[in-house]
């Protein structure tokens, strides 16, 4: 049977972090670490490099702001200019609030959508859920999963880290 990876369970954040670092140094390329809360340094330890989120949010903000202003300008000046209270069609000071709101709105949506997309979520079915003990990953247990490595070596390596347990993760 083909394996998704080999998984080890740890009791604490420090243990997981140490394990992840060691696995990384011993040349395991594809490491996944699961924890019930974010742990400082863990992503880097598992080889996480570039975070695109800020760029996406910025792009969204710009799009929202510029788009918003253009929309107002088009509708009030080009599409149907109407004399409202004797103010000029292009009353730019009064276009500011909507422009600002749209900047924030689009930026926020872009950020969230971007995050989910990059995280490949939503993903309801995932091999790791096949491990019975994995439900503790959202409570008080910490898991390390080595992928695309010879299963036997991985098991041996992990056993060296003194985990609470080791499992194969079937696909």
């Amino acid at each position, binding site marked *: 049977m083909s394996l998704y990876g080999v998984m080890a369970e740890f009791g604490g954040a420090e243990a997981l972090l140490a394990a992840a670092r060691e696995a990384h140094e011993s040349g395991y390329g594809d490491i996944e670490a699961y924890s019930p809360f974010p742990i400082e340094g863990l992503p880097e330890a598992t080889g996480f490099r570039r975070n695109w989120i800020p760029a996406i949010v910025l792009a969204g903000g710009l799009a929202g702001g510029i788009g918003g202003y253009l929309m107002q300008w088009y509708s009030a000046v080009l599409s*149907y200019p*109407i004399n409202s209270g004797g103010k000029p069609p292009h009353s730019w000071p009064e276009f500011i609030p909507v422009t600002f709101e749209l900047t924030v709105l689009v930026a926020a949506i872009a950020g969230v959508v971007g995050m989910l997309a990059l995280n490949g979520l939503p993903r*309801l*079915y995932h091999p790791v*859920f*096949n491990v*019975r*003990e*994995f439900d503790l990953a959202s409570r008080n247990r910490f898991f390390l999963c080595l992928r695309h490595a010879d299963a036997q070596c991985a098991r041996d390596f992990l056993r060296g880290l003194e985990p609470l347990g080791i499992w194969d993760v079937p696909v």
Partner: protein
Amino acid sequence: MPQIFGPPAVLGIKLSLVAIALTASAAWITFYKALPAQSGLASPQQPIPFSHKHHVGDDGIDCRYCHWSVEKASFAGIPSAQVCLTCHSQLFNDAPMLEPLRESARTGAPIRWVRVHDLPDFVFFDHSIHLAKGVGCVECHGRVDRMPRIERVASLEMQWCLGCHRDPAPHLRLPQDVFDMASKPPQDPRVRAQLAARLLPKQRLTDCSTCHR
């Protein structure tokens, strides 16, 4: 922990999402088709199967013979039973399809035609001024001389009105052409300019108060 969602479950969820999307769009399209502008009011059954094609196209009767007030009033005028009978007391005077007409003349009870070109009640349209400025009948009513049964060719939506009010020039005819079904707006830009010059400024034509009171 056992998987909560096996691959089939996930597939099911995805499919149902697609289904929801499809039904929603379908519902919207049906709703949109039901809007007055698109709805089947375009060519309803009339109490008498009156054919503009026959009267205008074949017999060549002028619009104003029946719609007599079109140049003088906001309302074009619908011919009274008498007007019809000026001819139909001689022609087809016993045709069964004209019975409603004869009855109306007899009893004085008017014929209830179904309104085809129906504007909302907060819109005030005036036929006379449009004709006076060179907007021909055919511009809004289409080639009625080819309609066995009268039908609506324009949506009569505000955007449709605005289309002309914002840029009238291409829709203007020479005064002698306004009642001519076959006529075309003059192509010569100078003539067009002359016709357009007789209009109020665009700002006035697109004022709310031009059509709404």
